[in-house]
């Protein structure tokens, strides 16, 4: 006696019924836990530092030419 395996329907994601996603609509901004706050502060410091470094490296050759 042979058993027939059930059929499996494989659909392309674009052809399938769309799912309810975790869009976060209505949640608003992320809650600022101490670790998130610290990370964003660190990021600001890093960006300011990098902008300063970039400015320094751009200005330095011009100042050098002046001497």
């Amino acid at each position, binding site marked *: 006696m042979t058993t*027939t*395996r*059930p*059929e*499996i*329907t*494989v*659909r*392309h*994601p*674009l*052809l*399938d*019924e*769309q*799912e*309810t*996603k*975790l*869009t*976060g*609509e*209505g*949640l608003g*901004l*992320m*809650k600022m836990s101490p670790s*998130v706050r610290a*990370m*964003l502060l660190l*990021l600001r410091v*890093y*960006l300011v*530092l*990098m902008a300063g*470094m*970039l400015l320094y*490296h751009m200005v330095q*050759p011009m100042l050098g030419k002046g001497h």
Partner: protein
Amino acid sequence: MLQLRYRSSNAEGVQRAAPPARIVRAPWKASLLTFFMVMGPGLIVMEADNDAGAVSTYTQAGAQYGTHLLWVLFLLLPICYFVQEMVARLGIATGQGHAAMIYRRFGKWWGIFSLVDLQVLNFLTLVTEFAAINLAASKLGVAPIIAVPTSAVALTALVFTGSYLRWERIVIALCLLDMAWFVMAYVCAPHWNHVMRDTFVPSKPLGGFTQDWVFLVIGLVGTTIAPWQLFFQQSCVADKRLRFADLKFARLDTAVGAVFTILVGGAMILVGDAAYRHGIKFEDPAKMAVALEAFGGPFLKNALLLMMINAAVLGTTTISLSSAWAYGEVMGWPHSLHKKPKEAPGFYIVYGLAVFSAAGLVLVPRAPLQTIIIGVQVLAGLMLPSAIVFLQLLLNDRELLGDEWANKRWNNWVNWTIVAVLFLLSMVLATHFPTP
């Protein structure tokens, strides 16, 4: 409370383009078929990262240090997988792009910052892509004034058809063309015992750890992981409407893409290694291709130049799309490859502007291309840590994702280590900026 959005049916255009459902009995066949249907965003994002800049950096690494830096690529394999897996997971869970998530969860300031940062970096990178097309085409005997505008028109036509699937199939075919790098590496006849040793065992370079060596290592890292990739893959996964159950296949797609891109990157180093062994001084990959003709014949020269163009084309379409998707997400415009240009004009205008303005700049006589190329490397290196920090914070947003989709403890250990290493490399880069 979490509000969920439900979109009930597929658009007519999507149903027209998608292949019909298949019925199978064997579970392994179902898995294999589903994988092939899901496959795309991971492979494309990884392989498109082997763009013109990557060809230049990898061949330079080979031409200056032989096979010595292969171990860096081996180390980068898990790193690029871990980073892009997070993006794929976030895209599947939220069905939204990266820019939209940053804007929504971190507010207007960080949202605009991320968008402007991405647009500037992407534009500069696109200029380098067209500069490569310009270089390679001129060495193939095609005038840049013909090659550059033709490429821009073809790249625009590729997305303006209003079919995600058509775009994806063409781009996957272009990705697979990169297998030609394996043939080129074979033709270059590298010393395979050196290749094996240098892939798995880091060693001190000839000449010691110089500043140039440090920059090249940072360049390899910056080339292999770029900010646009985060934005691109998440938007692509959202546009392809991958389902929750597709996550394991999306992970496999990302892993296959990561392995493929690292292997192709390795092959590029081996082609550069041929120049190293024959004492050819590296200036740019196009000049190297011409010089290698004496040893590898016209096949090697022409294949290298054509693959340079292919790399630039892949980079251009994906980078421009990441710009267009991100802009559309933040501005709230329709932003999908399923839509015709008249249905999503803003999305297509941003794509077209990105492509044509970069192509136009390359054709300007005496444009500061070398400064732009170095600027891209510096800016990408500096901006990557901040892009990954947002990704990491979003993946720890349990209010949004819940425990199922948020990072696990081991994910965080791995990813924070990657973030720390990237910050460190950026600091090194910042204190020793290269000058044109």
